[in-house]
């Protein structure tokens, strides 16, 4: 019995298993409750719609693993959608339009990283500021009306061509997630980024340039937000002010649900993507059940809280597993570092 329990605990302790179980349970539940939920075309449709969420979640997860936070991802995604569509509408060729969009994201990522690292400012305040700047620039760019209608078929085809039964946007998203996962797990720089997120002091002792690694993470996050924006603009062929507002909340929730620890250093890209999958599936399921979609923001808020509380519980549980003979430790000892100074 004890073996079974510790076996089950180990199984649950494997990264990604809890979120996978949660997603499976939710998907089966919806499939039973609403038969139309499991329809292949409708699944494809809603996943294609939510492509930007997956892409910014991947980037944000990398930043959180590197020990930071990026609240600007949603606004940067919206702005990049605007700049790339603007470029395409003004006759630039598709490649340039894509580069303009991704470039917008990279610039914001670079600014975020540089300001946070070089001036040692609090990461969420800086990215809250750039969130406002990006959202405001989109208002300026769209001039209070929406940008509509490029005739560049190649640009539009970027998101909606059919590749093996899936849309190109979905294929590109999967490629992004796989590539980022491999970079994080298989390459030296990925391992260094994770190490630097685990805690600055040990990483510094190991001779890592923590600041530079963090800037890389913000660059990737910004660039991916830009890329997500390009795909969104190509799919909708219209961009208006306020687009992608509040996406940062969904991305944070997705990453946290996927077991990416806000303390940094722990979690992975595909687990975060699974968190995003769970969230958008909840959204779709509730929509099919006729629940007002406006409730989604409440669900997202609850998911963030649940994710963080579970993460904390899991960390404590892991500590008790590691010490089979519990010593009488003072009550305060298991407290993780406070959020002070973040």
């Amino acid at each position, binding site marked *: 019995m004890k073996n079974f329990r510790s076996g089950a605990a180990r199984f649950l302790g494997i990264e990604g298993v809890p979120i996978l179980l949660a997603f499976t349970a939710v998907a089966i539940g919806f499939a039973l409750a609403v038969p139309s939920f499991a329809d292949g075309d409708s699944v494809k449709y809603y996943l294609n719609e939510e492509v930007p969420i997956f892409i910014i979640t991947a980037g944000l997860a990398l930043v959180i693993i590197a020990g930071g936070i990026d609240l600007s991802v949603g606004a940067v995604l919206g702005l990049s959608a605007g700049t790339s569509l603007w470029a395409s509408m003004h006759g630039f060729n598709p490649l340039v339009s894509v580069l303009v969009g991704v470039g917008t994201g990279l610039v914001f990522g670079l600014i975020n990283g540089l300001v946070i690292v070089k001036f040692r400012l609090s990461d969420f305040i800086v990215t*809250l500021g*750039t969130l406002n*700047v990006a959202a*405001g620039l989109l208002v300026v760019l769209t001039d209070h009306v929406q940008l509509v209608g490029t005739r560049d078929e190649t640009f539009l085809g970027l998101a909606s061509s059919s590749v093996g039964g899936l849309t190109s946007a979905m294929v590109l998203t999967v490629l992004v997630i796989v590539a980022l996962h491999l970079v994080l797990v298989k390459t030296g720089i990925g391992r260094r980024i994770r190490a630097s997120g685990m805690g600055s002091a040990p990483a510094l002792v190991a001779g890592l340039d923590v600041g530079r690694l963090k800037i890389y993470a913000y660059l990737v996050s910004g660039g991916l937000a830009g890329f997500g924006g390009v795909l969104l603009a190509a799919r909708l062929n219209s961009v208006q002010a306020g687009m992608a507002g509040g996406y940062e*909340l969904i991305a944070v929730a997705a990453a946290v649900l996927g077991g990416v620890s806000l303390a940094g250093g722990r979690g992975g890209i595909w687990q975060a993507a699974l968190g995003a999958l769970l969230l958008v599936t909840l959204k779709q399921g509730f929509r099919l059940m006729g629940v007002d979609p406006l409730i989604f923001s*409440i669900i997202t*808020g609850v998911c963030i809280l649940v994710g963080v509380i579970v993460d904390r519980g899991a960390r404590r549980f892991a500590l008790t597993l590691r010490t089979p003979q519990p010593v009488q430790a003072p009550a305060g000892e298991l407290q993780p570092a406070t959020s*002070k100074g973040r």
Partner: protein
Amino acid sequence: MITLTPERVSPTTNERVSALRVRILRDPSFGILALLVVVCGVMAFTEPTFATAGNLTNIINAMMTVSFLAIGMTVVLIAGGLDLSVGSVMALSAGVVASCLNNGMPLAVAFVAALGVGAGIGLVNGLLITKLGIPDFIATLAMLGLAGGFLLYWTAGVPILGYMTDAYYYIGGLRQIAGPVTVPMLLVLAVGVAVSILLRRTTYGVKFYAVGSSPTGAKNAGIRVDRIKIAAYVISGLMAAIAGIHIAGRTTTVPPLIGNGYEISAIAAAVIGGASLFGGKGRVIGALVGALTLTLTRNIINLTGVESSWQAVVTGLVLILAVLANQAWSGIARSIGASRS
């Protein structure tokens, strides 16, 4: 906290100047205030409409909402926390007031309901952060989504209208009580003085500074750190509710997204006023100076004919610059302080 004792017999001019220098260095809002005076002077000469009584009253009236939020945010920042939910809580409280009035309840009941919602959410924030150990900005970010989402879901995205009564026009500041004086002005003054006295003149208030500057030290000194932090979030929630009561009267409708972005203004105002994100620092008067700075910036943007769409961009930049200046300022103050003693 050093207070200049009145018994000191006529300090020399040199002593006075250096005491002043120390105070200014300790308190960045002095520097900001000086900057504001200069900016206003320039504006008065270049823009004839700026220094008119009408425009100045406009500015004061426009800074009220952020002032309430910034006072609450300052209390939370002093206690070492951060509250991202203030904009959403303000919007939700405004919605509660409006719908209570629409359902025929008296003004007092509607206000109590709104204040209850604000204090309740503040309490939940505080409990999540202290008892469950969730990082401040994540707990309040989730609450931002929850409170905002609840208002959106509840109103189905449709603005609440038709709740204005005669008395409410006064509370919103749309009608003056005497000369240019409006109810919100008196309310900000009253709330500001009350919180200021609480923070600077009571033992209870000193605990907020203690908890913010060193939670461990405060705990060792026998302060119940969790309770102080929870109290700070409750105060912030109450301030957001007051701001909600006020803004519902000022705008005469409550669109569900009315609070969007206010958390940024509130943080920026508090930080401009000298509150530190690392806790233990901040003053009510600073928060008001910060709110004035933000409102003046917007007013100047409008008057100089810059398109209003740039406002959000400027607010974002002001936030980052304020944090940057705050950090630089304390660095300078520290190095001068070190070389002096």
